[in-house]
């Protein structure tokens, strides 16, 4: 298939990517940054999305960084999800990202593509939402700026026009100090969008944090819910029930399941996760 007409650019440097985006925008064009392309091409086939040029970022070395850098784990936006899993630098991220789509498709999806997807799920963000140290390195007209993830995440990663994500970092000590569970629950098939994906971390101080995808139209964590989950004097079942009834949003009702079913599955799964985490202490 030839999807609707657009131009293709594959810059080799951050500067060249920013420059071509700026030039095209100045001409009144509608360029978009391109990672793995899975979402862009499938939406394009449905004639969704308004763009007339794609700027493929995968040839830029900075987007392909993947490793430890002065105590920080750095994950380039152009790293594919299967590469994350095979390197397994941060097992919590692996456990979450390795349940997105199917294996072949994960060999195409990039971390940046998932984090900046227009779909509601974006599961790879969940572990980062549970840390204090996560940063996003963003390329823009002032160069590459490191911004605290919590400062730029509000329902989505909020980047300014023309900016793009270069990499995401997390402090290695913080990442290693978290016991975790990450479960994706689907309605029927193993490969499907999540009814709910739940990522839970027990931090070194014993507190519990949880992040959810599929419950609402965007991934989220909630300090109120985290406080409830951390009340370890209460039973796991009680905390899970109170957490579900204290969510900041009502659960979605959609093709994957009703609100009531999502609540049931979330409560059940959360109970099991809390029991598992606390049994492993």
């Amino acid at each position: 298939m030839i999807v609707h007409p657009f131009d293709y650019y594959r810059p080799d440097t951050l500067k060249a990517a920013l420059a071509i985006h700026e030039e095209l925008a100045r001409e009144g064009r509608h360029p978009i940054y391109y990672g793995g392309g899975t979402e862009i091409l499938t939406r394009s086939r449905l004639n969704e999305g308004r763009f007339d040029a794609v700027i493929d970022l995968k040839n830029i070395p900075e987007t392909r960084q993947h490793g430890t850098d002065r105590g920080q784990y750095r994950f380039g936006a152009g790293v594919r999800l299967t590469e994350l899993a095979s390197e397994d630098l941060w097992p919590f991220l692996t456990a979450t990202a390795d349940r997105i789509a199917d294996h072949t498709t994960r060999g195409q999806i990039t971390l940046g593509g998932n984090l900046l997807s227009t779909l509601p799920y974006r599961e790879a963000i969940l572990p980062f939402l549970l840390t204090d140290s996560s940063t996003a390195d963003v390329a823009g007209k002032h160069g590459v700026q490191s911004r605290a993830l919590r400062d730029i995440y509000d329902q989505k990663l909020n980047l300014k026009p023309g900016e793009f994500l270069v990499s995401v970092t997390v402090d290695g000590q913080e990442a290693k100090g978290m016991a975790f569970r990450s479960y994706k629950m689907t309605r029927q098939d193993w490969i499907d969008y999540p009814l709910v994906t739940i990522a839970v971390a027990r931090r070194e101080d014993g507190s519990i944090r949880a992040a959810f995808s599929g419950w609402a139209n965007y991934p989220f964590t909630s300090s109120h819910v985290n406080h409830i989950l951390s009340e370890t004097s209460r039973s796991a079942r009680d905390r899970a029930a109170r957490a579900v009834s204290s969510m900041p949003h009502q659960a979605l009702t959609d093709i994957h399941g009703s609100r009531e079913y999502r609540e049931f599955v979330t409560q059940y799964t959360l109970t099991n996760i809390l029991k598992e985490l606390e049994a492993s202490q």
Partner: protein
Amino acid sequence: MKSLTKPEQVSLTINQEPCDVVIYPGETLLYTLRGDALGLTGAKPGCENGDCGACTVLVDGVPMKSCMVLTAEVEDRDILTVEGLKETPIQRAFMDQQAFQCGYCTSGFLMVGHALAQDVANASPERTIEWLRSNICRCTSYQEIYDAVSSVVHPERS
């Protein structure tokens, strides 16, 4: 910077053979492979939405759904299609295990099975299933397909 703003000739390497072909910037690899210029119709158009895996090919040894890859992305990369799997163990195994019914999905499964055998030494049953879950067989020959792939991944057990 590589750019493609109009139909243009690019150089591809397919099944270890270099070939030049004219492509549109927004053309998928599936479309290019199956077009008149190349005529490699082994990769099948199924859902063209990344769900079914019938169009799977290998790019630098990695399985990719060619309906979700731009041809412009894979210039200078090694592309392997089912036409390049002649006389390979995976092809023989599918015949031995009768791992097909209508055959439409077969080329995609062959590519995934071949990549698994090449890429993962002694893949576990769980790993094998995880890779095969990327593809759909509407005739539900899954057990035979699994047996065929396993016989290549673990020849000592078959």
